[in-house]
């Protein structure tokens, strides 16, 4: 054969492999409202930036007549490309080829691209759309999953790992996304569970749909497994692109700086969005928007444990991670879920050199038998652990109430915040004024001629004396009491002066966080 003929032969082979499961299977995929694996990669990456590898990989199974079957690319597409010029390794399972099932060579393609990402020190994006293990390949498919999980764990905190669930992801397969940093789901398309509705029905006799068991909403609102919820695959693609713009390539780098932009303080005017009475609700996200560049706040886990708000923003072009109590929901208390949510985000930011900005406004931990029995001690401890352990620049702003254990947990001076600022509306105390007065002045109140009158008087007394930032400021627990409108200026200055921050933790293999 001449070179020309060989090239034509190559093109023909490529053309065939690129078809995946063929026209019929693709039609089925589209009918389910889903994009094909190849379309997904192309939608996410910069135009013409995708380079595919291992297109001609064939499965190696022999049993159950598998040797007679040809599975193009073995059901997964792998390669490298760029997102906004930012290099990434990517794989996408192809549901049109044997249901995207994971066999030995399929897994090997994935682990190969994972090893690439680790060697090149660039983010890894995995698009999951798979029926699960390829049963015909038996223990080899289990080995494949194990090899992926191991790499996910080793890569954790070294390169950013993003999982996108665009179809079923069931059984052991769910543990790869669970081990990665961020999980994206799309309404009505994503499904994640360990045991599906059928098994649950036979074993427990309980009937439930896939959607109600492990749909996108369930994982965004109830379990907290997902970090980003989208209505459509297009929206999901935009969310991934936006996330990538906020995070660094790897743990030795800082996030790429962005052009500086001031926030829209006309729309987000502190005087209008913030009530000074600690018992009144407001949306803390508006306060974040009054501080962040371009009033742009990219929220993470927006639907889960809404009593705490986490997400990315920028200050003078540099990415920061915001953690803020949300007085709008449950008065902003810390509980099992919100502690869990915040702690993981704090550890993410710390691993990837993203400074932390904490906005404090909480009445403490949520009381209740359900909370105590759900392990609020163990889960609540996670947030203390995460803040204490974090060595990135830590800036804390106390907006209003900061009571009891909640005050300590929310990146206080005592957990080694670099800078603690307080608004004049801050109330730093062991508990709320009513509760405190009831205890401290119990005798005076009960012995008074008019106990209710006395109680009111004592509450007012306590409020005047302790419901302010000046007691804590007098001990130096707060570095400055600031005009709320100067918050951004103080934070930007704090970040500028902490750019060389180096904190030496004692040498250890690793700590033992209250997982």
């Amino acid at each position, binding site marked *: 054969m001449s070179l020309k003929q060989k090239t034509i032969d190559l093109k023909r082979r490529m053309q065939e492999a690129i078809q995946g499961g063929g026209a019929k299977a693709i039609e089925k995929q589209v009918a389910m409202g889903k994009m094909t694996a190849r379309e997904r990669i192309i939608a996410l990456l910069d135009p013409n930036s995708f380079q595919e590898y291992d297109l001609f990989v064939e499965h190696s199974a022999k049993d159950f007549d598998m040797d007679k079957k040809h599975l193009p690319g073995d059901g997964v597409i792998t390669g490298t490309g760029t997102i906004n010029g930012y290099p990434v390794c990517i794989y996408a399972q192809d549901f049109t080829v044997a249901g995207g099932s994971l066999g030995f060579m399929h897994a090997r393609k994935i682990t190969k691209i994972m090893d690439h990402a680790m060697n090149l020190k660039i983010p890894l994006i995995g698009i999951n759309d798979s029926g699960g293990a390829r049963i015909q390949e038996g223990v080899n498919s289990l080995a494949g999953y194990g090899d992926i999980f191991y790499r996910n764990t080793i890569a954790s905190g070294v390169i950013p790992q993003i999982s996108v669930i665009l179809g079923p992801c069931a059984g052991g397969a769910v543990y790869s996304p669970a081990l990665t940093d961020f999980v994206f789901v799309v309404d009505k398309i994503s499904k994640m569970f360990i045991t599906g509705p059928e098994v649950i029905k036979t*074993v427990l006799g309980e009937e439930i749909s896939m959607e109600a068991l492990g749909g996108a909403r369930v994982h965004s609102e109830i379990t907290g497994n997902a970090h980003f919820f989208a209505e459509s695959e297009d929206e999901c693609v935009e969310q991934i692109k936006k996330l990538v713009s906020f995070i660094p390539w790897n743990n030795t780098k800082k996030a790429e700086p962005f052009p500086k932009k001031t926030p829209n303080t006309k729309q987000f005017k502190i005087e209008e969005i913030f009530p000074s009475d600690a018992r009144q609700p407001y949306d803390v996200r508006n306060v974040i928007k009054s501080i962040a560049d371009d009033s742009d706040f990219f929220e993470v886990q927006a639907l889960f444990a809404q*009593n705490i708000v986490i997400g990315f923003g920028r200050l003078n072009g540099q990415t920061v991670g915001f953690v803020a109590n949300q007085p709008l929901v449950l*008065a902003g208390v810390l509980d099992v879920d919100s502690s869990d949510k915040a702690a993981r985000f704090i550890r993410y930011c710390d691993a990837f050199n993203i400074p932390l900005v904490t906005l404090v406004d909480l009445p403490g931990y949520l009381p209740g038998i359900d909370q105590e029995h759900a392990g609020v001690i163990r889960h609540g401890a996670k947030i203390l652990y995460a803040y204490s352990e974090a060595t990135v620049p830590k800036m804390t702003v106390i907006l209003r109430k900061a009571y009891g254990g909640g005050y300590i947990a929310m990146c206080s001076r005592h957990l080694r915040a670099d800078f603690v600022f307080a608004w004049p509306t801050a109330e730093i105390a062991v*508990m709320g004024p009513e*509760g405190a007065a009831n205890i401290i002045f119990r005798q005076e109140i009960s012995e008074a001629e008019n106990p209710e009158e006395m109680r009111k008087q004592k509450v007012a007394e306590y409020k005047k004396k302790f419901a302010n930032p000046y007691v804590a400021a007098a001990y130096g627990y707060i570095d400055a009491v600031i005009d709320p409108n100067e918050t951004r200026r103080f934070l930007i200055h704090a970040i500028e002066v902490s750019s060389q921050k180096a904190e030496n933790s004692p040498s250890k293999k690793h700590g033992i966080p209250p997982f």
Partner: protein
Amino acid sequence: MENEKDTKEEKEVKPDFQKFVLEADTYKTLLSKKYLSRKKFEERDWGAIKSFIPGTIITVEVKEKQKVNVGERLLVLEAMKMHNIITSPIKGTVKKIHVKAGDKVANHQLLVEIR
């Protein structure tokens, strides 16, 4: 289209704020779905032996009025092809047996009462 926008704006203006009391202080805030649907605590009755999985009773190994010790076999419940031996968590007397061999039982069904 305009109607849709109107109702959306109205929702944003009137959130369903509730009174939320923590210690003695009252806060105005929204209550989350998860908080509202939290399970009420119930004291566990250790003498009420219930199935932990749906299945079939294979054998009942005690009789009513029989005295039993902690860890003594009460019955065998087959589920998922496994024979699960149900033992007594307390010392007492079998007050009532609610099932017999061959019965199909649902999850959380009362099987035996020990007092």
